[in-house]
């Protein structure tokens, strides 16, 4: 329970009051004391003087006469005079009856006077019911004290006076206390008003408004404080600004990275995730922090990897297959995450999408294997038939030569076609990266030349070739290359169409592109093959394709040509109904 805080006023006011009360009391005590002392000394002097005078007056008178003189002086001066014999008997008194008065020998002033000195005493008189001052003087005759003359006066007055003074001082004290309260209030206000303003300003700092500045009060201490706080706010503002800038830079770098980045702590809870990584897990980047990785990526291999990464201090690397909407292979790489004191905080995982690289790798491997295989097949058959021809005797040679030579020719043609295609491909590949400059060429002549090249084959297979190309359209292209692309597409269409069916070539302008479309009504291509048919040596049906004399490179060449032109090749196919190949080129 925290101590209850008091207002500054209540700290100041009591001390003010205390100072007032103490100083007033001291002054009162001292002044009344001094006053009383002065009064008493004065009274004593008066009484001594009177006593000395009366002593002379009394000298030599009878006892009765003494009493009368006493009464007379008493009536005239209001001073009480008493005459006492050494025995203690009172023989004269201004106000009391002599006979009734008790023995005065033991009174301190008289005892002192009997010894020959002046006796002074202040005490309460039972006779008069008042506080009195007594001064006793010895009356000496022939060396001995014959009587004592005592004069006395009431000192009650002084006490009453002092009491009334004290009363008025108490009244003054109350007034001063009120004044002190007022002054304390004023002073505390004066001190607290700038403090209050500074507090409001500091609260502004606390809530993050570091641009405002505190007003500097006119007190030296407070102004120092205010300046220091202003400087602090300034520094803080700079620090926060730079930290924010850094965070934003980091954020920008991370979110623009193509690689997925995830930081997790030791409990596998996500500390940070960038947009690419969130995309890998098919979830929005917001709201992923503090969630467990398992909740977002339910991938067993990834979990195994994270366990390994969190257990080791070195970085770990692995290739992991993600089967989400599409299959992706990621090369994931972990680095230990340490805090500023070097303690382990978690791990940082970077996801690098290597799906494409993997596919290219396989394609290259396949290509090498395919090329050697494609070359080997006709060569083996050539070798076989050449050897057989050599072994034949005269009669058989005549009989079988022409048949064998036809086979040899067919294989040699296949080899030539394959090598030609490979050369075209490599030529096209060499052109990759070079930005070509094309002249505008009309579509019609290109398509017509291509069709006349295919006419022979169309007739042989009994297929009707149609062409519908609008004359007005021209595209930026190399006419020889484009001819080859169209020939390849039409040849394919002819090869796979049934005799008696139709193959049509359409040309025109669509959506800002020059479009050449080859439509057949062949067996069509199954969906799973569509993404791969433009790969080299990819064949939907290997046996059939080779029977037809294909090299397996036709579509790859078409794709390369179209890409070289900055265009696009598309294919749509329905199994059993036919296929449509579409070349899109930039308009002239």
């Amino acid at each position: 329970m925290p101590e209850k805080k008091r207002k500054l006023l209540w700290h100041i006011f009591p001390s003010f009051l205390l100072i007032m009360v103490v100083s007033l009391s001291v002054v009162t005590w001292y002044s009344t004391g001094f006053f009383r002392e002065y009064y008493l000394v004065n009274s004593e002097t008066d009484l001594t003087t009177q006593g000395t005078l009366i002593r002379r007056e009394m000298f030599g008178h009878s006892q009765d006469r003494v009493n009368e003189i006493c009464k007379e002086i008493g009536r005239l001066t209001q001073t009480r005079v008493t005459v006492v014999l050494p025995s203690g008997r009172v023989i004269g008194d201004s106000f009391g009856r002599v006979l009734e008065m008790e023995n005065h020998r033991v009174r301190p002033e008289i005892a002192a006077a009997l010894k020959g000195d002046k006796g002074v005493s202040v005490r309460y008189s039972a006779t008069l019911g008042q506080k009195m001052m007594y001064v006793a003087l010895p009356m000496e005759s022939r060396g001995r004290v014959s009587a004592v003359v005592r004069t006395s006066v009431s000192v009650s007055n002084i006490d009453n006076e002092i009491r009334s003074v004290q009363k008025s001082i108490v009244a003054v004290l109350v007034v001063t206390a009120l004044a002190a309260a007022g002054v304390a209030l004023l002073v505390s206000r004066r001190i607290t008003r700038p403090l209050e303003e500074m507090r409001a300003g500091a609260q502004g700092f606390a809530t993050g408004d570091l641009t405002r500045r505190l007003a500097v009060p006119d007190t030296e201490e407070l102004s120092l404080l205010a300046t220091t706080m202003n400087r602090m706010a300034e520094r803080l503002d700079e620090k926060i600004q730079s930290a924010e800038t850094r965070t934003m830079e980091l954020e920008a770098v991370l979110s623009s990275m193509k690689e997925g980045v995830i930081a997790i702590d030791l409990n596998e809870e996500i500390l940070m995730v960038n947009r690419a990584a969130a995309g890998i897990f098919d979830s929005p980047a917001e709201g992923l922090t503090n969630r467990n990785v398992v909740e977002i990526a339910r991938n067993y291999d990834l979990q195994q990897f994270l366990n390994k990464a969190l257990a080791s201090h070195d970085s770990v690397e692995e290739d992991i297959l993600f089967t989400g909407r599409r299959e992706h292979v990621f090369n994931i790489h972990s680095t230990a995450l340490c805090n500023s004191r070097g303690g382990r905080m978690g791990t940082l995982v970077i996801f690098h999408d290597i799906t494409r690289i993997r596919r290219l790798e396989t394609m290259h491997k396949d290509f090498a294997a395919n090329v050697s295989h494609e070359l080997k097949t006709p060569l083996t058959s050539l070798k076989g038939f050449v050897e057989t021809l050599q072994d034949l005797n005269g009669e058989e040679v005549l009989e079988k030569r022409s048949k064998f030579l036809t086979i040899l020719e067919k294989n040699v043609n296949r080899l030539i076609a394959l090598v030609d295609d490979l050369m075209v491909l490599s030529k096209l590949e060499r052109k990759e990266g070079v930005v070509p400059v094309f002249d505008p060429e009309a579509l019609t002549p290109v398509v017509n030349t291509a069709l006349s090249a295919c006419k022979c084959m169309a007739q042989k297979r009994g297929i009707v070739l149609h062409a519908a190309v609008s004359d007005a359209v021209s595209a930026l292209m190399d006419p020889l290359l484009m001819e080859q692309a169209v020939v390849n597409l039409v040849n394919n269409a002819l090869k796979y169409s049934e005799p008696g069916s139709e193959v049509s070539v359409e040309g025109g302008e669509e959506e800002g592109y020059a479009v050449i479309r080859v439509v057949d009504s062949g067996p069509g291509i199954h969906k799973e093959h569509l993404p791969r048919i433009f790969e080299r040596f990819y064949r939907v049906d290997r046996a059939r394709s080779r029977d037809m004399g294909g090299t397996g490179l036709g579509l790859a060449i078409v794709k390369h040509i179209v890409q070289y032109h900055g265009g696009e090749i598309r294919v749509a196919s329905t199994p059993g109904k036919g296929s449509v190949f579409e070349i899109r080129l930039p308009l002239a």
Partner: protein
Amino acid sequence: MAGNLQKEINKIKKNILSLGSMAEDRFKKAVHALKTNDTTLAREIIASDVEIDELEVEVEEECLKILALYQPVAIDLRFLIVVVKINNDLERVADLAANIARRIKTVSGTGTGQYRYDYAPMAEKTGLMLKMSLDALVGMDADMADRVILMDKEVNEMRNQAYDAMKTAILKAPEQVGQTINLYLISRHMERIGDHATNIAEEVIHLIRGKIVRHGI
């Protein structure tokens, strides 16, 4: 005290989800092995079933420990009960995946004229059910769980189709009856996996809505 309970529950959540991803992984591998006739992968799946069993026991013991130590109430209690049940379902899913892997050995004969059945669509649907039921658990998504329950009928229908196809196949080639029966059993296993996914979805609904929706009540 409350903080500790939450920590323990988070741990349980993590464990049940890793169990889920393990089961999902096993099923995917089994389907892959079935598609590619990969008997090595099938053997791996069967051998690694022990891991799942161990994790299942661990999760159950954790749940019992929390129940005894903290005596949780309301959503926490429901969550733990649901985890115990889902735990069981997931272990069964992994078992069934291992069973599919066992069938692969007997149906992967290369004999000509052997009857083949394309399980890809059924496997896809079942896998989707399993994935969606776990997604519903992660995202506390009762609507998704509802959809999983609806999908169960489709998987059952696919099993019936497989049954009819097998029947005609057996009549055509009675000498291969053993293999064909094994092939049919795969559809049974997949259908059972779909049932377990449905169970998980029902538990998720129970967890979210606090209402037990089992047995079509």
